[in-house]
């Protein structure tokens, strides 16, 4: 039974990683396309364009646009690199805010397709946790994905973190049109098992609001 669950979890986890990589590569391809066209425009201006008094400022604008795209790409690569390393060890010390920041950055393109934005309200004083960051991100991803898929244009997903003693509470809420979010169906049970058994937390899904509590797990319990 547990073997079957682990197999299913591996499949869903792979799908999650695939979606994040697809979103990332799409974003990077766009940045590269802008860089290529900007460089091409400078080339055109030198070869076939007529030079004018405004040429210098035009070149500077184009160069700034290239630098901006490179900076955005570097930021995304940093997030993807950190996302990939979350899987180096199943259990490790990590910061909830950083792992959420990373997931939001990597899912922004998916959300943008529906004109959905993320609003963050992070408690800066959260304790570092010893737990499974990759599974934590997977659980949050499932709810983000539900909000993105089921909602209309122009709404916001609000992500709040709070310190509760040695634990962290994460609240995902939805601002915008009133929607009766459908439950995650088959996924609900899996998420419940992940949260309760794998990362020893608590989760409550009220549709428009999802509340999750997560703490450090002892090194002894992660072996079970």
């Amino acid at each position, binding site marked *: 039974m547990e073997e079957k669950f682990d197999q299913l979890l591996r499949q869903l986890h792979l799908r999650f990683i695939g979606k994040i990589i697809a979103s990332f590569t*799409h974003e990077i391809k*766009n940045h590269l*396309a802008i860089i290529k*066209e*900007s460089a091409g425009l400078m080339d055109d201006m030198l070869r*076939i364009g007529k030079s004018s008094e405004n040429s210098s400022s035009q070149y500077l604008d184009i160069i700034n646009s290239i630098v901006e795209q490179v900076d955005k790409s570097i930021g995304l690569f940093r997030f993807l690199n950190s996302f990939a390393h979350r899987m180096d060890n199943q259990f490790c010390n990590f910061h909830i805010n950083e792992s959420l920041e990373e997931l939001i950055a990597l899912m922004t393109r998916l959300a943008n*397709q529906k004109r959905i934005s993320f609003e963050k309200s992070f408690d800066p004083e959260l304790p570092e946790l010893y737990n499974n960051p990759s599974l934590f991100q997977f659980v949050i991803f499932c709810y983000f994905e539900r909000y993105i898929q089921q909602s209309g244009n122009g709404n916001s997903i609000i992500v709040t973190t709070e310190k509760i003693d040695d634990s962290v509470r994460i609240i995902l809420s939805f601002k915008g049109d009133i929607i009766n979010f459908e439950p995650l169906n088959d996924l609900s049970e899996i998420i419940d098992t992940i949260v309760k058994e794998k990362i020893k937390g608590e989760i409550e899904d009220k549709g428009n609001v999802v509340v999750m509590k997560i703490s450090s797990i002892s090194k002894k319990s992660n072996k079970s």
Partner: protein
Amino acid sequence: MNTNEIKLLVVDDEVAFANTLSQRLKMRNIKAVPVYDGEQALSKLKESIIDVVLLDLKMPGMHGLDVLKKIKSMYPDVQVIILTAHGTDKDEEEARLLGSFDFLKKPADIDNLEQKIRKAYKEKRNIERIKTEAGDNNK
């Protein structure tokens, strides 16, 4: 055939990309106008004559394939070239079934892109000529 007056719509939610590409195409005597989503593209088509549309797929609001479907049903002669960073084989097949002229992936080579736009324009002119001749024969 005068291909110096091609009126092209560049539809892409990446504003910097749409603007820069339009500028480059203008330097090649193509009257390129950038718009940033499907809704803007459809309203531009309604208010002005457009020969060729360069269309992104993944955009906020309407998906590129839905925009393509609308364009082909409302302006069947307008030729649509898909230019996307996210094109899968399935997207390509669907775009072709919906009547796209070509399917290119970003980043595209400007000379190749220009060539495709001019070919698409010729295709539109040919269709218009055939329709005119058929109309004349029916008189």
